[in-house]
């Protein structure tokens, strides 16, 4: 059973979150360094931002805007602290947007509890932010978010798990897909390996083609190191068997988008299938 205990995860997240709340300057910055190149931010400037972030709503939003505009990654710990102590919805939404912009993994811990906030906007913004800040906490939180009552949060989480290459989340993604989370299709296409891809492809016919094709797209365009040509050819063969107009159009579209340096063998099969199904391949 891959499903983790809800309570255990919450406590882990909340404990991590709680450590941020105790005033310990730069404590949150001890995590993985920001991936993006930070603009130079002087300590005086950080001190001023810190002060502004403790002010009233306008002051806080202004400071966040300044961090956002200046792409001041060094201010990430200040945002962590702000999120840890909480704020108004306007402040939280601005802080989460800024966190998204900074893409600092260290922010994931502070963002995580907000994916379960009562405010719809706040929790959706938080879920989106995790896709950018990434890291193990982001993955764990997104896995948890697949269980959310909020369909938007579930969908964002599913997409995020694909983007974050969270292969371990595959069982949950299959479950989510089977329970009608369409965004899980692309994630499954991004993450599946070997028989897992067959498992996904096996859903063809049971789920609308428009949803399935988001996963097929991922499988077909993944590098050969991840999905072999044989697997792609097998998928095209399966699609060819369906023989519907929309399959024809889709294969034709794939053929058009096929990278010039992509597998010639696969391209040939796609062209042939598109032609056979009647997708009108442009040569």
């Amino acid at each position, binding site marked *: 059973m891959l499903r983790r205990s809800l309570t255990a995860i*919450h406590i882990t997240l909340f404990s991590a979150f709680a450590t941020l709340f105790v005033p310990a300057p730069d404590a949150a910055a001890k995590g993985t360094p920001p991936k993006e190149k930070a603009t130079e931010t002087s300590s005086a400037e950080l001190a001023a931002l810190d002060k502004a972030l403790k002010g009233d709503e306008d002051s806080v939003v202004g400071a966040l805007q300044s961090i956002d505009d200046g792409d001041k990654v060094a201010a990430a710990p200040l945002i962590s602290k702000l999120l840890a*102590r909480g704020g*108004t919805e306007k402040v939280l939404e601005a802080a989460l947007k800024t966190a998204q912009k900074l893409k600092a993994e260290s922010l994931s811990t502070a963002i995580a509890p907000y994916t379960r906030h009562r405010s719809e906007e706040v929790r959706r913004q938080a879920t989106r932010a995790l896709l950018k800040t990434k890291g193990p906490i982001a993955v764990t939180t997104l896995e948890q978010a*697949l269980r*959310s*009552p909020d369909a938007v949060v579930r969908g964002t989480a599913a997409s995020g798990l694909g983007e974050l290459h969270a292969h371990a989340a595959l069982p949950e993604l299959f*479950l989510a897909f089977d329970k009608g989370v369409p965004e899980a299709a692309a994630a499954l296409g991004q993450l599946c390996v070997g028989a897992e891809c067959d498992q996904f492809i096996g859903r063809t016919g049971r789920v609308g083609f428009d949803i399935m094709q988001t996963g097929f797209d991922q499988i077909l365009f993944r590098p050969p190191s991840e999905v072999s040509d044989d697997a792609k050819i097998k998928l095209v063969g399966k699609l060819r068997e369906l023989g519907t107009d929309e399959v024809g159009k889709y294969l034709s579209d794939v053929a058009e988008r096929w990278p010039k340096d992509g597998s010639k063998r696969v391209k040939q099969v796609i062209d042939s299938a598109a032609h056979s199904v009647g997708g009108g391949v442009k040569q």
Partner: protein
Amino acid sequence: MRKTFFAPAALAAFATLVTGCAGSMKTSAFASDWQSDNGKSIAAVRAHLASVPVPTGRGVALGITKTGLIGVGLDGSGRWSYSGVVDSRPSIAGDVVVSTSKGHLFALDAATGKELWHLPIADKRLRGAGDDGHTTVASLGSDAGGGGLVVAVNRSGTVVGTWTPTVDVGIPAVLSDIVFAPWGNQYVSALSLTTGDEAGRLLARTVVSRATAIGGSIYFGENTMLRFDDAISQSATTGGHEVKLAERELPGKPAWYPTGTRVLPPEAGAPDAIRFYARPAEAGDKLVLDSQRFAATYFRIIVGFNEGDGALRWVRTLPAEVIGGDAATGGFAFCDVNGDVWLTAARTGGDAGHVSLGAKIEGCVVDGGDFKIAGGSDTGTLAEQITHAIELGDAQMATVQRFLLRELGTNDDPTITKTLLDLACNARTQPDVLAEARSLLASRRTGIEYMIDALKQHYDFLSDVLRAPPVGPLADALSAVGEKSAAPLLAAHLNDPSDTPDDVKRAAHALLTLATASEFDEIRTFFSLYRATADDDALVAAVIDAAKILVHLGGADGIEVIERAVSDPLTEPVVKQAISSLIPAKTSDIPHAANRTMTRR
């Protein structure tokens, strides 16, 4: 008040007479200037009839279809059908079935369905009928009331008495040469078939709209049944021998019998699905209820009550809506829309078999007669029976399910807690039932282990847990019993957006007494997330309780969190105002975090 009686000799052209165009003679029947005779006249009638046996009938169920009638004995014997659309609810009177159809009154043999006689009655319809094995008496009227006609007919179809009272006469009975005609809600006129006059009159203290033969006696009443016996003369004073049902507030306000002065349509309606059933019986010199039980139907659910105190004794759930029935000796026969007649043991509610009318029906009339219902299968404990009824996923049943839940709530059995939790956690539970289950859970003090298990659950889309557990009621219950093991679970629910603000409020309040230092982080997270975003009173109250816990369990850390929140311009003003007084004035007032539990203040 004008009343006419047509003697047998004048009945050559009955069809003409009922239209009121023929001559008539005045009688004393239904006189409005009658003065109470303190029971003397009805006592004389009783004395006159004392040795006349009252036929009991054999126990018959009668189904009404779009095209006619279907009859079957309650023992399953002699199923018959009759083609002919009826326009009123038929009566089973002794061994005959009486109804009206297309301007005719007709009688069938209840055992075979064979027509015994029919008479023209113009546009009148049947209110009800009685029979003593020789003579049938029927009360007829118009749909809208009035236009009353009481007619007595012998087995060969000869009219032996007719009255056209201006009052609405209810369901009559007949015994020998006397017709009992209830009217005015308080009188029963004993009409002589020989003279047409009133041989006597009963003045009852209770509502009387029907006279009916049950178990070899004639009874008068509606919601109280008064027996026609040697004590009948006391009916207007000490009351005679009467029996009534213990008072119970039940959904749909069932009645023992519908008023007898109305013409009922052939098709059953809601009042037929929501009824009481009971059978008067003699115990020594007292009149009681057979088997000391009465039953109430509410569509598919039947509940059995104890005679004396009205305590719930059993619940039976049937596959289809009950639309008719009667009490027999030792049990009840309930007829459903599918044409099945379910025999139910009166003492236990156990299944005592069933007979089938063989077709779907629109209305049903049952006469228990002298049929005896014995045995009855084991249907489990009362709690199990109630649980089964409550789990019925039928919106129409919600009202009675709430009633049953309240009954269930009085039982301390821990498994009842589980039943209530199952209902409260089930996403398909009707809102009314859910509210009742939650309310009852809050006052439960047993089944703690089930409560703890339920609190471990959270909304989980992937696992099909689509309704959060009843956190608020469980918080109330667990706090009342001081169950400390609930603290981490309740704390986790503070941060679950699937729980309602009210549930969160109650969880936070329970944590005032249950929380330990182990819950500090979870509670602090909740406080931080909502101190500036709490947008309703319940959430604000929860945040304030969380602050109290942080101060008392968090030591310096907790106080610092609150101090910062007080000084933060973003904190909701109402929260800020409430928590500012929590900060100790001196450092020495700061409690130590370790090993502290809360004392609610």
